[in-house]
């Protein structure tokens, strides 16, 4: 059983002078656990010089922040961050350790879970209390189900699913306290040569009022013509798509919507043949009206849509285009 007094810890991230937004989602996950399992929530912030970021975190969250100094060159790399965090955690074992689902968070969580001999659950969408245990929900069965898991270890490491928890912070009544943990210089094997900005410009997608997006369900490359013709029905419309189509070269990378591409919030989002992988959904959740066209009524995108059309897009879109054309003729 989880010791009642063991804290709920959050590992936050900062890079290039800003807090990684996924850190706030990890904090919301920690707060949700705290409501079910009363224990103090504390934030750990590793970094070469995390003072300014730690102060910002404490101010924005009202939580106690422990800045874990990682001696060595800036930016610090995952290997030294893991070692520095481990030195702290070995004497301050948490009940839950929440980390962002960022590239860095998903790189650091497995080694920490291994050293803590902890259960590790990624893609957490929900937590609930049942039978005296905290259950952690993650998507299963091709995103058709939530599987609730009980940890069999005293410590659990968690990464929230991107988009499943709020990333906005309520204004705290007062800033939290900031403390320091200085560690020795760790064995550094990885060297960071710095950050490269996104090679693509998502400006067209970001500015569009209507986004028509294509997924694997388009079937053949030629069917993208239907997506383009559908988008042409609105001014200020753009065509986007899933990572799979961009990887295939069917769409350019500046048309990619999702975690590793653009985040869009148009007034109308038409998802054509998109299954609704969490990575894609995280990039379009802020959209206004969402229309999903898919042959599979159980596709995850249908749960995120205002209007669900169970049809083959190559059959439905031509019919819709004809209807719009006929409507125009009638109106003349």
């Amino acid at each position, binding site marked *: 059983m989880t010791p009642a007094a063991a804290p709920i810890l959050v590992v936050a991230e900062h890079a290039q002078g800003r807090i990684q*937004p*996924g850190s706030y989602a990890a904090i919301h996950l920690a707060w949700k656990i705290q409501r079910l399992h009363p224990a103090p929530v504390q934030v750990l912030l590793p970094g070469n010089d995390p003072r300014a970021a730690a102060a910002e975190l404490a101010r924005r969250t009202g939580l106690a922040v422990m800045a874990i100094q990682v001696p060595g060159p800036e930016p610090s790399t*995952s*290997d030294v961050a893991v070692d520095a965090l481990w030195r702290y955690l070995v004497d301050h074992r948490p009940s839950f350790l929440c980390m962002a689902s960022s*590239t860095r968070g*998903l790189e650091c*969580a*497995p*080694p920490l*879970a*291994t*050293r803590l001999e902890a*259960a*590790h659950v990624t893609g957490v969408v929900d937590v609930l209390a*049942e039978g005296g*245990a905290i259950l952690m929900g993650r*998507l299963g*069965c091709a995103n058709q189900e*939530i*599987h609730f*898991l*009980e*940890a*069999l*270890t005293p410590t659990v490491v968690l990464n929230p699913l991107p988009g499943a928890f709020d990333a906005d912070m309520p204004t705290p009544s007062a800033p939290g306290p900031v403390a320091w943990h200085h560690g020795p210089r760790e064995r550094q094997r*990885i*060297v960071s*040569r710095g*950050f*490269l900005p*996104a*090679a693509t410009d998502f400006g067209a997608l970001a500015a569009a009022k209507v986004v028509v997006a294509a997924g694997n369900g388009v079937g053949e490359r030629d069917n993208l013509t239907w997506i383009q013709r559908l988008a*042409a*029905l*609105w001014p200020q419309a753009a065509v986007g798509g899933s990572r*799979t189509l*961009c*990887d295939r070269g069917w769409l350019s990378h500046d048309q990619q919507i999702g*975690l*590793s*591409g653009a985040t869009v919030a148009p*007034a*109308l989002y038409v998802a054509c043949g998109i299954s609704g992988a969490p990575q894609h959904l995280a990039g379009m*959740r802020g959209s206004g*009206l969402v229309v999903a066209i898919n042959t599979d009524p159980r596709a995850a995108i*249908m*749960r*995120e*849509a*205002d209007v*669900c*059309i169970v*049809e083959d897009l190559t059959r*439905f879109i031509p*019919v*819709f285009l004809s*209807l*719009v054309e006929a*409507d*125009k003729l009638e109106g003349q």
Partner: protein
Amino acid sequence: MTPSPEAMSLRILVCVKPVQDSASGHWRMNHYDGFAVEEAVRIREHVPGSRAEAVMVGPEAAAGVLRRALGMGVDDALHIREPGSTLEPFQIASLIAAAVRTRNHDLVLAGVVSEDAAHGQLGALMAEMLDRPCATAVVRLVLEMRLSRVTVDRELEGGARERLELPLPAVLTIQSGINSPRYPALSRLLQANRRALPTVEALVLGIPPSRVALVKRCTPPGTRHGLVLEGRTEDKARELHAILRRKGLPPRPAGGRP
């Protein structure tokens, strides 16, 4: 993959996961692992004397997945046989680490995530268990054999990248889109089909106890109240048209009036 001209030989291990099609029950290679296998084969082709080996944990019925890797060009394969398909990532990593620990691979590659369970943990777990440096979500890699080093660009959020240098031996997880995985060569597939795959039973290696228990399943709640349009295709098109007009988002045919 860009090799340096002063290449020596490399021992490469690529981890593949079998994914079962829910409808047909057929086993196929995890989509993301195809990119890792392709990268391993490209390195093997460009660095003379190198060998690439594929390893998989899975049931006997999934052996075709390893044969596909052989068909794509890896030299050897190791099947860690485990009849179930519900092992946790750390159990899979423990099995692979136990099987390959003494083989001193210079480079261990894996797909960035699995398409079925989407844990995304295996590469980082392997690195920890084998005590190797690790970079995840790699979209470009350059080997510098003289320096016994690999330089990678790895993907961060929103398409940004970070450039990292790792000493060999190292573990890398390969992001989709880094290459175009080849189709297996027919001659190689036929060869692989005739060949007995080296196997080891997971029970012999020792499966560590589970750390989580599945307690219950439920249907995810929708974030929106999806209106499912009914009727013939024409009826649905008409209803969508009406909804879009009501919402102030009327479609106009190309060349139509504003």
